């Protein structure tokens, strides 16, 4: 079955990619200025302190040894302990991953909904709706995520007091951040969907379908949307990476907990195990998504099954 073989190959390359990413991050972090134990010591300075810290975290061992130990542990699923927070990295990540995934997922759904509605409503329906839609999309994709965040905050939170300014709990706290993150993504997605739909509408089979008495909206939903899915999925893979990146910024704008703030502080305080865990997670997400996309492609387009 070519599909199974294709997935196995994709997973194998995925493992390779994850290993490469972690190695690159490990080398980068250890090449940063200053020894890590000095950083961890911070403002304290009494004899024997730095050596003790180095000893505690095994930083005094040679790099290859540290690396081998680290990769060995990861293979068994042990992500080690955070230098700064002194907690098991897996726990730290687990506690912080939910808010970010929630935000990215909700933003993704909102973006998909807006994009589909925009595309179906305006594709191939004459010049005016088309130009309005493309202008709106362009403005959305061109504005910085955090600026949109500020504008929403100013309008809905400070002026209209509809939504709380921030915080991680309660459904109302996630509405503004999710919309902030969703808007630029929906602009991009809508552009791709609409152009793909318009190309499909110019194909001869569109005339055949119309000759069966099928209405304009039914044509778009029952036929054209599937055709628009292919280019949208290619973009989708890239967008998810964007959503994670965007989440970091949105979390900072709205003061929400999550992987964003965790990553920022981990890198700046050179908390190596946490940074490497985040890199691993990012690489894993990327690999998982590209594998899913591969499968989805074949499901959506039967012509790919024969190769």
């Amino acid at each position, binding site marked *: 079955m070519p599909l199974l073989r294709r997935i196995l190959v994709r997973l194998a390359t995925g493992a390779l990619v994850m290993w490469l990413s972690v190695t690159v991050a490990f080398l980068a972090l250890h090449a940063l200025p200053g020894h890590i134990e000095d950083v961890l010591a911070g403002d304290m300075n009494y004899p024997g302190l730095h050596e003790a810290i180095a000893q505690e975290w095994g930083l005094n061992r040679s790099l290859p040894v540290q690396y081998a130990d680290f990769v060995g542990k990861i293979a068994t699923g042990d992500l080690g302990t955070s230098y700064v927070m002194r907690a098991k990295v897996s726990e730290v990540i687990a506690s912080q991953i939910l808010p970010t995934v929630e935000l990215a997922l909700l933003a993704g759904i909102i973006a998909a909904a807006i994009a589909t509605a925009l595309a179906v409503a305006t594709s191939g329906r004459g010049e005016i709706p088309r130009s309005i839609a493309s202008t709106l999309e362009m403005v959305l994709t061109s504005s910085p995520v955090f600026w949109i965040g500020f504008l929403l905050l100013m309008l809905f939170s400070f002026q209209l007091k509809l939504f709380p300014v921030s915080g991680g709990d309660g459904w109302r706290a996630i509405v503004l951040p999710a919309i902030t993150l969703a808007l630029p993504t929906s602009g991009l997605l809508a552009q791709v969907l609409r152009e793909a739909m318009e190309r499909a509408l110019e194909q001869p089979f569109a005339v055949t379908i119309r000759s069966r008495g099928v209405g304009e909206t039914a044509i778009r939903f029952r036929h054209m949307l599937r055709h628009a899915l292919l280019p949208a999925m290619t973009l989708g893979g890239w967008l998810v990476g964007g959503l994670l990146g965007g989440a970091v910024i949105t979390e900072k704008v709205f003061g929400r907990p999550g992987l964003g703030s965790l990553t*920022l502080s981990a890198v700046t305080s050179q908390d190596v195990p946490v940074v490497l865990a985040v890199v691993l997670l*990012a*690489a894993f997400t990327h690999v998982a998504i590209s594998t899913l996309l591969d499968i989805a492609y074949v499901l959506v387009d039967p012509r790919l099954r024969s190769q």
Partner: protein
Amino acid sequence: MSDVQHGLTVDALAPTRPTATQRGLRWRPPLSAAVIAALAFVVLLCIAVAAPQSISFYDPLRGNFLQSLQPPSAAHWFGTDRLGRDVLSRVVYGARYSLLIGVSAMLISVAGGVVLGVFAGLRNRFVDEAISRVFDVLSAFPSVLLALLVVVFLGASMVNVAIAIGLSGIPKFGRVVRARARLVREADYVTHAFIYGRTRASVFVRHLLPNVLTAVPVIATLDIGTAILAVSALSFLGLGPQPPTPEWGVMLAESRDVLRVAWWPSVFPGLALTATVIAFTLIGRALQAHFERRAR
């Protein structure tokens, strides 16, 4: 089977005036009003980069404490920020940083992307696989994390931000160039070139490379917008140029704390940023349409 499927006999290739059914009403004048406006805005940006003092009235770095957080007025069209500095002057001087970093980041992405893309597209499977893995690794890092590592590694400065964003842009560029290279490689004018006594090398130089690179200026222009956005994001996270540099992202970051009492320190840099990105997107689209019309 490669046997040529004898195709349509309806002379689809004849460019008789585009019948309404095929072309619909999408025939547009060559330069729409929006594109002209975009070009004008970019000219304005270039003036701001080259001679900012010509279109601003104050020193962007000198603060007057008595006039901190003044709303837009005749004296200060865009009002003043917390340190009493003129927001309009800072936006004008800011253009230089956003544009220079954005363009240099784009150039890095383009250079890396084109070189790797061409190799991946035109060389054997092994090279193609290896380079695709490089793209995977680069895109496995969310751009922010990649930028973080680069900036913390090299220190937060304009050059490093450009490198960070340039690196994260390479996979996107690389994949586009690779796809185009694989397309051109199969085209008849390349496979049949031997009929005219061309050597492999001259086919590469005369037909392959030029046709692959025709798309580059288009994607490059489109990418300037994305690069500028990425730069502002990094500055917002405090990893880009350092205060008091009047870079738009830094200005937005600084405006965050006073958002509640003063809207202007945040709205105007944001508008400048968005307008710049829109301008480059419009110009990129116009270039794309021009190339498509010629190549079709």
